[in-house]
């Protein structure tokens, strides 16, 4: 059971901005992170500085929303709805490589824990594995259906490595998860979490939701999947945020956590405390929140209202600071003294 004081965070430093920040990656052991936005920009900021100031990367980068940011030893790698991956020099903020990565809109970018590989996912429903240094395409991973059962385009929203880098999971709009071993990228398990997806066949005849976030537990035994629960009115994000926890090896859904709907909207991102005793979810609808989950009990222990819809965040190594990016704001949450 997590100590209640371990999750008693408060918003400590809020920075307004004129665009939506969708993605971020933090330099370990620092308050410096890089983030991608709706103005097609990539920015560098130190959120621990006395007067944090975002510096824009310069040069030919993206022509659309920047949906994924990943760090390698030398580079910041970003991906956008413009289908491209861009490698940037971390220190100069200049692009060093730009290449088309997907046939449709790119939704996310992740680096392997050793920083040697980059995974990108897009609405062509392919996950692509890239050499982090050379940018060479190593693998193309399919298996996610391109269309929904009602003949509309599906979307491949997210990917994540296990902490030891041995596993890779990808998740799509219909709630399908494919887990692969990274030694050969062959699928080892498929999970279905259809509760994250709502198709309205009668009133509005379109859909909403999808599996938006996933994370392996630190021991690699469980997979946390995030999204939104079944929605009555698919015009809005008016349903409870939804966390579904799997024992992935058994293919067994262990628990759906939504606390009866007190936090509404999408679970956009999931992270674990270093000791694995608790997890934190971030997301929102018109507003935003952080939700803390006791991993042993698999239940919510704390809900914290955020000043904005959170699209991504990062918990630091000491588990006493959370850096969050989202709708028109960047916020640092500090653990109360």
């Amino acid at each position: 059971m997590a100590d209640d004081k371990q999750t008693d965070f408060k918003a400590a430093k809020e920075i307004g901005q004129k665009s939506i920040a969708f993605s971020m990656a933090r330099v370990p052991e620092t308050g410096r992170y890089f983030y991608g936005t709706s103005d097609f920009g990539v920015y560098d900021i130190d959120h621990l500085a006395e007067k944090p100031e975002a510096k824009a990367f310069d040069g030919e980068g993206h022509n659309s929303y920047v949906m994924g940011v990943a760090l390698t030893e030398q580079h910041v790698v970003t991906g956008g709805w413009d289908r491209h991956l861009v490698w940037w020099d971390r220190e100069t903020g200049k692009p060093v490589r730009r290449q088309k990565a997907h046939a449709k809109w790119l939704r996310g970018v992740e680096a392997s824990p050793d920083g040697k590989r980059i995974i990108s996912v897009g609405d062509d429903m392919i996950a692509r594995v890239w050499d982090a240094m050379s940018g060479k395409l190593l693998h193309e991973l399919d298996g996610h259906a391109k269309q929904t059962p009602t003949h509309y385009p599906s979307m491949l929203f997210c990917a994540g490595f296990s902490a030891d880098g041995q596993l890779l999971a990808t998740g799509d709009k219909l709630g399908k998860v494919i887990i692969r071993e990274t030694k050969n990228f062959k699928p080892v398990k498929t999970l279905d979490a259809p509760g994250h997806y709502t198709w309205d066949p009668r009133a509005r005849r379109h859909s909403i939701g999808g599996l938006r976030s996933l994370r392996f537990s630190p021991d690699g035994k469980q997979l946390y999947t995030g999204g939104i629960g079944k929605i009555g009115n698919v015009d809005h994000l008016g349903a409870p945020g939804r966390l579904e926890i799997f024992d992935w090896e058994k293919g067994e859904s262990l628990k759906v956590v939504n606390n009866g709907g007190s936090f509404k909207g999408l679970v956009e991102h999931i992270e674990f405390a270093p000791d694995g005793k608790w997890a934190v979810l971030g997301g929102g609808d018109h507003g935003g929140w952080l939700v803390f989950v006791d991993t042993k009990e698999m239940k919510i222990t704390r809900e914290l209202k955020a000043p904005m819809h959170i699209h991504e965040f990062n918990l630091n190594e000491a588990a006493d600071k959370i850096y969050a990016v989202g709708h028109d704001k960047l916020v640092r949450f500090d653990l109360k003294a």
Partner: protein
Amino acid sequence: MGAGWLGTSAAINTFAETGLNKALKHSNKRVILLWLAGGASQLETWDPKPGASTGGPFTDMGTDIPGVRISELMPQMAKRMKHSCLIRSLNTRDGGHGGGAQMMMRGRKDEANLKYPDLGAVVSRELGRMDSPVPDYVNFYTSTEGRNSSKVSPGFLGARYAPISLHDGEKLTLPNITKLDQITQGDHEARANLRDLLSRQFEQGRETGSVRSHAAAYARVHGLMSCEKLFDLSDEPQKIKDMYGPTQFAEQVIMARRMVEAGVPFVRVSRAWWDSHGQNFETHQELVPELDRVLAALIDDLKQRGMLDDVLVVTMGEFGRTPKINASLGRDHFATAWSASLHGGGTKGGAVYGKTDDKCEKVVENEIGAGELFATILEAAGIDSSKEYHVGARPIPLVNPGIKPIREVLA
């Protein structure tokens, strides 16, 4: 019979025909309205603003008309802009579903004591034929959301010009036209022949409008009973179905094409529901490609049948969507600067009328309201928009005084 479309209005003489009107009724002009219920985003369809803070994540693409660019979500229509005209300067001033729908369907707001006929009713009255065996106005609306707020209405024209409304999503057909199982086809035909014989005998020496109308009404009912095949797509070639795609909207648009081919003057196919207050981009990723495919297929289908010069296809809804993107990544209702499109019959392919500013927040050139679009659709369908009806002694123009059609988009 189901709906009261055979009823006549006590307020006006619906059977009165001008010389011009008679001539038009011999033409093959038809209208198919693709009603984008809930309000499609102009930024993700006809008026993209890539790179603007309001532009969203999608880019634009060039079309077969140099200088005209539309959303990348519409690659099929990008090849068919020579058959299309875009209206990018609608300011219709009503951002409510009910009010906006009424405004767009009737071209104006009702008066306290006068309900105006909608587009379908006017086209039905002007282009419909008394001796036609098919309905004059058909309205598909199979989703439930917005069905009541975008109700179609014949207004003061009366029930004779009300649409046959089709709501059942599972099996679409006209209500109450199916022959009773207890009656054999032979009996059914024998009864009709007997009625026809008696009617003709009765008509001899009785050359009045009432008698002709009575006989025409029966012929119409009998004809309607053969309309069921219009809803049965089993005889439609697979390659045609493949063009339109596998969705319900696609099937209904094929039915609409079959109907105009059979002589129905006005068909509205409603595709609900575009009201993307949350997750606008994912919603439009679903719905715009469907619209793109279906609309392109309809244009090709009509062209192949030699009907594209006569059949006007319109896309519009009750309004567009806000340039501002809300925190749920949605766009809200916006009637200030949005778009509609016209294709085929009576329009000037490749024309683009009006312009919005760089963020699509306001119209900067050739602003028009719902009335001008209403008048333009009538003119494209060969109907004189300056015409007047009479309710009692009061003359009622088809559009409000001062409203003119957009000549720049008319052929």
